[in-house]
């Protein structure tokens, strides 16, 4: 168990290094540089600026400086926002994205498990057909359309009441978070519902269910203790990769709902070629996702005692 965890962690660290290197190489391939955005600067000022940001050194030196600073947890200063540290940007905006993501995962997981179990219980009957239709819709319609429609719905609700019941955009209260996280979780919810349904249908025919019935257990007890608990396992496995999908999906939702999350910052930084912010956020996001997947995998061993981690 400990060996497994250590092994995974080591692989994770190497992966993060790989991400950092790939980001560095990609960034240095980009035509143009952040200083180009400024008004025409004379050669001397330009040289000074380059010296200030360390852009005058050879690429390999820049790479090792970058790696060294990263080990210290320092991603440098933003090029476009004077005197603002990348660490500060991440500290200010990542919690927003994380809150949004956690809520979305919560909606997706509860909804997916619930609806998936329902469809399996009511197989080929009305609730099954209706939910599976919605699932297909959820998988086929792009998330930005849902975001736009969700916002439209809020506008209509508010105009129905005559005042702002649920804010249409922005961030701050729990009411602000409701619609964006729901929209963000929708696609994942659809995927999880599908997965839960097939896994549940498999479980229903297992011998231990028959045994439980023969023992005379109540249907609710069989449903919760025996079917749900066993069927939920595959859902947990995909939760790790889905966390990654949800975090990146957050870009659109943050854009549409004007949420000050890290995703919006990243898009902005890319448009302005803000080297340090791009590299910082990419490495941070990458590391976060890599370790989330590891955590989910390890947790899986606790949830399902049959899985031996090795």
């Amino acid at each position, binding site marked *: 168990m400990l060996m497994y965890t250590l092994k995974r962690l080591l692989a994770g660290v190497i992966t993060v290094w790989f991400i950092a290197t790939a980001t560095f190489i990609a960034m240095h391939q980009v035509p143009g540089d952040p200083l180009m955005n400024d008004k025409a600067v004379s050669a001397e000022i330009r040289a000074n600026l380059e010296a200030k940001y360390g852009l005058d050194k050879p690429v390999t030196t820049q790479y090792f400086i970058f790696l060294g600073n990263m080990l210290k947890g320092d991603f440098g200063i933003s090029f476009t926002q004077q005197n603002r540290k990348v660490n500060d940007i991440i500290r200010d905006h990542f919690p927003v994205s994380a809150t949004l993501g956690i809520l979305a995962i919560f909606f997706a997981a509860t909804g997916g498990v619930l609806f998936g179990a329902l469809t399996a219980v009511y197989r080929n009957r009305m609730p099954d057909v209706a939910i599976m239709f919605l699932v297909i*819709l959820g998988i086929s319609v792009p998330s930005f359309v849902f975001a*736009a429609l969700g916002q439209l719905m809020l506008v209509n609700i508010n105009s129905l009441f005559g005042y702002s019941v649920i804010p249409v955009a922005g961030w701050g209260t729990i009411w602000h978070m409701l619609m964006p996280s729901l929209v963000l979780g929708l696609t994942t919810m659809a995927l999880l519902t599908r997965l839960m349904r097939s896994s549940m249908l498999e479980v229903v025919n297992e011998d231990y269910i028959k045994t439980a019935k023969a023992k005379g257990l109540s249907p609710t007890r069989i449903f919760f203790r025996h079917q749900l608990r066993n069927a939920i396992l595959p859902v947990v496995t995909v939760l790790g990769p889905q966390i990654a999908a949800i975090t990146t999906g957050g*870009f659109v939702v943050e854009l549409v709902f004007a949420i000050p999350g890290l995703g919006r910052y990243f898009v902005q930084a890319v448009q302005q070629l803000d080297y340090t912010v791009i590299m910082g956020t990419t490495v941070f996001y*990458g590391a976060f996702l890599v370790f989330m997947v590891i955590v989910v995998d390890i947790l899986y061993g606790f949830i399902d005692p049959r899985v031996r981690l090795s």
Partner: protein
Amino acid sequence: MSLFQPETSMFEPLETQDGAEVITRPSLSYWQDAWVRLKKNTRAIISLNIIILLAIFTLLGPFFWDVDPALQDLNQVSQPPSMPKTALVVGSYQSWDGVTIENYEPPEDYADSVPAPTNFRTEGKPTTQVVRLVWDPVPEADGYNVYRNVREPQGFADLGLPLGATYGDELSYEDRLSLESRDYYYSVVPTDGIDEYEIFARLVITPQLAITQEDALERGLINRIDDVAIGELVEIEFHPLGTDYLGRDMLARLMEGARVSLFIGIVAPLLYVIVGIIYGGFAGYIGGRFDVVLMRFADFVVALPFLLFMILFKIAFGIGPGESGIMPMLIALVLLMWPATARLVRGQVLQIREEGYIEAARLLGGKNHYLIMRHIIPNTMGVILVTLTFAVPAAIFTEAFLSFIGMGVAPPTPSWGSMCNEGVKTMLSHPHELFFPALLISITVLAFNLLGDGLTEALDSKMRSRD
């Protein structure tokens, strides 16, 4: 009890029957068998037909609908879908003196309240060139304000756009403010010269689309100025699915956008599946240390946060002025997506390598490349085909997603995603600009997903015994 008495006639040979031992069930190859099973799946077949229709729409559409998708028809901006429309040919604008009261005497006392103006009407035919409003005087009033709304006013505070004010002796107003052929709710409010009385008369008008001969000639609707006379109708540019915010034809743009979206959606998966097959095939077939190293590298690529690197690579390859940005997106997709296929193919190859028939072929002297080409690749084809089908919607989504956040295809090249991006901005007033591209994305993704489901079932040879 009599014994059985055999007769010689019982021992005659039977006539030989032809074909008694012929297998009646036709011998089907793997692919024929899969096709038979796929044909039974209604949903998959409908999806296949939709995909064929989409291909026709994309490839043959421009021959039937020969409209330049980049042409801006600024006379018809953000038009909803419609049937062919005609416009009334009118003369050039003639100035109008309006209706005034001769020898007007302003009221001596200002009344607390006044009745609403009566007989609120139009003078002449209301067209998009000009709408002339006339009303009867209110004796106690010393002026009027005219408002225009595009929907039915909900009360006095909701009269809409204030068009202008008149003095007490002027009983008419001429509206020439960017008129469209739609319902207008005009209101006229009497004033005491400065302040409004809280009462109004209302008139609902739908101005007729009008065009002058000169404009018609300039827009190419007629060839010579005297092709149509004033008062006749002329057909104007036809936009069956409406126009966008720059007056570009939606249908033509959807076709052009389909070419971009489907190109990325089909070519990118094809490319990275090929890369994946080669990579995974080598790793799986050679095996050993080589396999470990190759797969470890693939693991790293998988761990890259997909969207971040998609954006990063896209800008790293750069878009020059006038380029559409399709190629950088294609390369970025291939660079990031190949490991999934590589892993899958490697797993398949590892499994198939141990099968008895490979061993047999090797014993019979089959060379490596023969084994790979003849036995291993054909046996992985089913799985690869399914991956490919599911990869198409994923690629289409990625393109739409990137274009939506403004990181995808550069304008003016349309793609379904960038059209959605533009449509979202005018979602409330002109929903068709978002609806059509979003619908096409959804239908395409749905069709490929259902086809993929069908293929998974059809290509699974274990299913054969269940028939």
